[in-house]
C-alpha cells in the first residue's frame, strides 16, 4: 500500500513538454504494440517543427468531430491531486492537462484529426506577428473573449499576467519569458520588478507595451523566434487582474477556458462544469463536448487501468487525464485485444539519463567504465518494457527535431544489460578497481526493481556501489542540491517545446549550476558553454537542430557526464462510451479537447 511510485514524478521536472508532429493513426495504435520497428517509423515522422498558424487557422469554432454528441458527465480517475491551479505556478504535465480545459493563453496548440499539431492564436487572433528580426512580437486579442464571470479579457489582464510572474510568490512556473524580457539568466529577472505589479510598479513600455485594450507588444533585446511556443505553455495562461488574490489565487483562480471549477476538495475530488461565458466561436482548438467532468483523486495507476480494462458500469464512461497503464498491468493488457482497442499510445518527450556528478567523479576513465557497465534494460522493464519506454542511445528524444537514430557510442542498445567485462578492463587500466560509487536512487517500486540489477552489474565491473534510497517526493530536490553527496543519479527531462534549445542549455550549461537547477551532472565544459552561445544565435531551426544534436553527442561521447537510458512512452485506456479519442503528443497524454460521451 505504498503510494505507487511516481512515474510522472520522475518527469515532473520536465514540465509540460511540447511533443511533436503527428503519430499517424495513434487513436488505436496498439495492434502493433510490440513492434519496435513501427515505433521507430512513427518517431521519424515527428522530428519537424510544429508550424505557426495564421489568423484563419486561429479562428473558431473548432471543426466538429464526426459523430460527436454534446453533453454528459465523464468520471475521471486521477492519482495525484493538483498542487497548483494558478497558471503562473503550473509547470507539471498533470496540471498542464487540466489547464487545457480551464485556462487560456495567448497562443495554443491545435490538432487535426490525424493528430497533426499547429501552433495557433488562442486568445490572440494569430500565433504572433514578429518584427525587428524577431525582437518585437505583436499580439491582438480576439473579440468576445470573456472570463468565467462574464467580464471581458483585455490587454490589461495580459500585462498583469506577465508582471505578476516577477513577484516572489510565483516560483513554480516557467521562467523563459521573464528571462527574455529582462535579458537576465537565472533568477536575475526578479530585480526588474521585485514586487510584481502589486506595489504599483509596472514593466516599462520599452519591454511590454499595451497601447490599447486589444494589443500587446513584447520587446526583447535578442531575437526570440520561439516566443509563440513559450506563450503556449500553460504557465503563461491568463490571470484576471480584477480577481487576482495573489497567493490565494492558487486555490481559486478565475478561468477563461470552456470549463470552470465548480468544486475542489484537495486530494479528494474536483468537479468541472461548462463555462457559459466561453464562446466556441473564439476557440479554434477546443470542442468541449461533455457538460461535466467529475475527477476523483487517489486512484492508483493499477486501479484505473484495471477498471478501464474491465469496462463495466460507470467505467464505460470514464477516462483518466494522465494516469497511464502501469507496468504490472501491461502484460495483462497485451492478452486482452478488446481492451487494447480502447487504448492510446505514443511518445512522451522525456529522456531518462544517468547523470554522473562531475564535481565528484573527476576521472574520465571511471565515467567511461560506468557508461559501459550500466545496464539500461532493467530500467526499461521496471517501467513496462518496450511499451513503457524505448532504450535510448542519445540524449535527444525522438520527439525533438535533431534526433539521430543509431547513435550508440557505448553499445548500450546491443548490450542493454551492460558490459561489465569491458568496464572491468577500463577500470583496471585506470587503477581504480574498487572505486566507491555512491548512487542515489528514487525509492519507488520501480526504483526497487531496477536498482539491484544495476548495482550488481556495476559491482561485477569492480565498483564498490553504495546504493542510497531517496524519498520519491523529495528526489529532485535532493539531487538538485549542488553540494550533494551522490556520485550519480537518474534524471529525466523533456523538452518544453520540440526544440533542443529547451534541452541542451538547461541540462548542460555550466553557467546555470546552482541549487535547484536542472544541470544535475554539474557539467561545466568550455566547449559546451561556448557552443550553446553560438547555436542559440542560429536563425535556421533545421541547422540549429543539427548543431544541438552534435553538442548533445559530445556530452555523451567525449565528456561522458550523462548516460542516455530511455525515451518515455505513454499508454492510456478509456471507457467504451468515450468517442473522439486521439493521442496528444504535445502534452504526451490523451487529447481532452475533442473527446465526447456516447449516449
Amino acid at each position, binding site marked *: 500500500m505504498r*503510494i505507487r511510485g511516481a512515474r510522472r514524478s520522475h518527469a515532473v521536472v520536465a514540465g509540460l513538454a511540447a511533443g511533436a508532429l503527428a503519430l499517424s493513426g495513434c487513436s488505436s495504435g496498439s495492434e502493433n504494440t510490440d513492434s519496435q520497428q513501427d515505433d521507430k517509423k512513427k518517431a521519424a515522422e515527428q522530428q519537424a517543427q510544429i508550424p505557426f498558424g495564421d489568423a484563419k487557422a486561429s479562428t473558431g469554432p473548432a471543426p466538429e468531430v464526426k459523430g460527436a454528441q454534446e453533453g454528459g458527465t465523464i468520471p475521471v480517475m486521477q492519482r495525484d491531486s493538483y*498542487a497548483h491551479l494558478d497558471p503562473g505556478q503550473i*509547470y507539471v504535465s498533470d496540471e498542464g492537462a487540466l489547464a487545457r480545459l480551464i485556462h487560456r493563453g495567448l497562443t495554443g496548440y491545435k490538432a487535426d484529426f490525424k493528430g497533426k499539431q499547429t501552433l495557433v492564436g488562442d486568445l490572440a487572433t494569430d500565433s504572433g506577428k514578429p518584427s525587428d528580426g524577431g525582437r518585437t512580437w505583436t499580439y491582438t486579442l480576439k473579440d468576445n473573449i470573456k472570463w468565467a464571470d462574464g467580464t471581458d479579457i483585455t490587454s490589461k489582464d495580459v500585462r498583469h499576467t506577465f508582471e505578476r510572474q516577477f513577484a516572489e510568490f510565483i516560483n513554480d512556473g516557467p521562467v523563459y519569458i521573464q528571462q527574455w524580457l529582462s535579458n537576465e539568466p537565472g533568477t536575475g529577472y526578479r530585480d526588474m520588478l521585485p514586487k510584481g505589479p502589486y506595489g504599483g510598479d509596472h514593466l516599462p513600455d520599452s519591454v511590454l507595451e499595451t497601447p490599447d485594450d486589444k494589443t500587446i507588444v513584447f520587446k526583447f533585446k535578442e531575437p526570440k523566434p520561439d516566443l509563440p511556443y513559450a506563450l503556449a505553455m500553460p504557465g503563461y495562461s491568463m490571470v484576471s487582474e480584477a480577481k487576482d488574490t495573489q497567493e490565494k489565487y492558487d486555490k481559486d483562480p478565475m478561468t477563461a477556458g470552456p470549463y470552470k471549477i465548480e468544486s475542489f476538495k484537495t486530494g479528494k475530488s474536483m468537479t468541472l462544469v461548462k463555462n457559459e461565458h466561453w464562446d466556441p466561436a473564439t476557440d479554434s482548438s477546443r470542442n468541449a463536448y461533455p457538460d461535466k467532468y467529475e475527477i*476523483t483523486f*487517489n486512484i492508483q495507476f493499477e486501479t484505473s487501468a484495471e477498471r478501464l480494462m474491465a469496462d463495466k458500469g460507470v467505467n464505460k464512461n470514464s477516462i483518466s487525464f494522465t494516469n497511464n497503464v502501469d507496468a504490472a498491468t501491461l502484460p495483462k493488457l497485451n492478452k486482452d485485444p478488446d481492451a487494447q482497442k480502447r487504448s492510446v499510445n505514443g511518445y512522451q518527450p522525456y529522456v531518462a539519463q544517468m547523470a554522473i556528478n562531475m564535481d565528484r567523479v573527476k576521472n574520465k576513465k571511471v565515467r567511461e567504465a560506468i557508461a559501459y557497465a550500466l545496464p539500461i534494460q532493467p530500467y526499461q522493464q521496471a517501467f513496462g518494457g518496450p511499451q513503457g519506454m524505448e532504450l535510448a542511445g542519445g540524449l535527444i528524444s525522438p520527439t525533438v527535431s535533431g534526433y539521430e537514430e543509431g547513435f550508440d557510442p557505448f553499445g548500450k542498445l546491443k548490450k542493454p544489460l551492460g558490459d561489465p567485462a569491458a568496464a572491468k578492463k577500463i577500470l583496471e587500466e585506470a587503477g581504480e578497481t574498487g572505486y566507491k560509487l555512491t548512487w542515489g536512487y528514487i525509492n519507488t517500486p520501480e526504483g526497487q526493481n531496477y536498482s539491484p540489477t544495476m548495482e550488481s552489474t556495476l559491482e561485477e565491473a569492480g565498483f564498490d556501489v553504495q546504493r542510497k534510497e531517496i524519498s520519491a517526493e523529495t528526489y529532485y530536490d535532493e539531487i538538485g542540491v549542488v553540494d550533494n553527496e551522490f556520485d550519480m543519479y537518474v534524471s529525466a527531462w523533456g523538452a518544453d517545446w520540440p526544440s533542443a534549445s529547451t534541452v541542451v542549455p538547461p541540462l548542460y550549461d555550466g553557467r546555470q549550476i546552482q541549487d535547484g537547477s536542472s544541470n544535475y551532472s554539474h557539467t561545466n565544459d568550455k566547449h559546451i558553454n561556448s557552443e550553446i552561445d553560438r547555436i542559440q544565435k542560429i536563425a535556421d531551426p533545421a541547422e540549429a537542430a543539427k548543431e544541438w544534436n552534435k553538442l548533445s553527442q559530445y556530452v555523451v561521447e567525449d565528456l561522458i557526464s550523462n548516460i542516455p537510458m530511455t525515451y518515455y512512452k505513454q499508454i492510456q485506456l478509456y471507457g467504451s462510451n468515450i468517442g473522439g479519442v486521439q493521442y496528444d503528443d504535445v502534452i504526451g497524454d490523451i487529447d481532452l479537447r475533442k473527446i465526447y460521451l456516447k449516449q
Partner: protein
Amino acid sequence: MLRFLIRRTIGALIILLILSAVCFFLFFAIPRDPARISCGEKCTPENLELIRRSLGLDDPVPVQYWNFLAGIFSGRSYPTGDCPAPCLGRSFVHDENVLTLIQDRFPTTLSLTIGAAIVFLVFGVGAGMIAAWRRGTALDKFVSGSSLVIGSLQIYFIGPLVLWALVYSTGLFGDPTYNPFTENPWKWAVGLILPWAVLSTIFASNYTRMVRSTMIEQLQEEHVRTAKAKGMSSGTVFFRYAWRGALIPVVTIFGIDLGSLLGGAIITEFTFSLPGLGNLSIASVFRADLPVLMGVLLFSSTMIILMNVIVDAAYAFIDPRIRLS
C-alpha cells in the same frame, strides 16, 4: 461520573500534549527540509529562504512548537489564507488547513469504521456464540477453524483478490466508492460493502475466539450453574445469563479496535482507493507534508483515548459492581 470525566479529560490532554511534543521534535529530526518540499521543482536558494520565512521555519523549534500550540487556541494566519482556531496548521503541499482536510476525510473513515464494526461484531460475536453453544461438535470445529483461517489472511492478500474476483473479472460488484450517507444511504452501503467485508476479516476472528472462550467459562460460573440447576432451559441460561459475562471483554477490545480504526484504516483505504484519513496520512507521509501528518497523528490519538474513556465508562453500565476510578 462527572469527576471521572473531568479527570480523564485532563489526563487525555496531558497525553496529547506530550505526544504532540514528541512528534514535533521527532519531525524536526527529519533530515529533509520541509521548506524544500513546498519549494517545488525549481527551487532556487532565494525561493527557499522565502518559503522558510513564510512557514515560520526560520524560528527555533521550541518557538515553532509554541506557535503550533497557540494556533490551536487563537488561530494563525498564513500568506495563502487564514486558519481560524482551532488551527492544527496548514499543509505544506496543498494550500489548505489541516483541520479542513481532516474534516473532509473523516466521514469516509467513519463510514468505513461503522460498517466494518457492525460486520465484524455480528459475524465475530455470532460465530463465537454458536461455537460455544455447540461446543465440541463439528459445527464448533468448523466455525472456530474457519474463523482462524480467515483471521490470518492479510488485507493486502485478500483485498486485491476480492477486487479481481468480484469486481474486475465478474462485475458482481461495482467499484468500491464513498458516497455520503446523507445523500443516498443505499449507494453509501453498496459502495462500501466490499471494504467492510475485507476490513472485518482481520477483526472478526478475534471476537469469535474470545466470545467462545468467555462464554464457555461463564457457563461454568456458579450463578449460571445455579440457574441451570433451578431447571431453566439451557437456551434461557445461555441467552439470559451467560452472554452478559462475555460483554466486558468484547467491549474492551471493541473500544481498542474502534479507536484505531477511526484514525484511518491505511491498507484498506489504499487498496480500495477510498478518500479517508488513512489515505490522507499515507499521502502526507510520502510527500513529507508534516503539518498534515502531525494533525492526523493527533487526531488518531484523540480517537484512541476517547474510545478508552468511553469503554471505561461503559463498564459501569454493564456491571454495576465496577466503580469508576
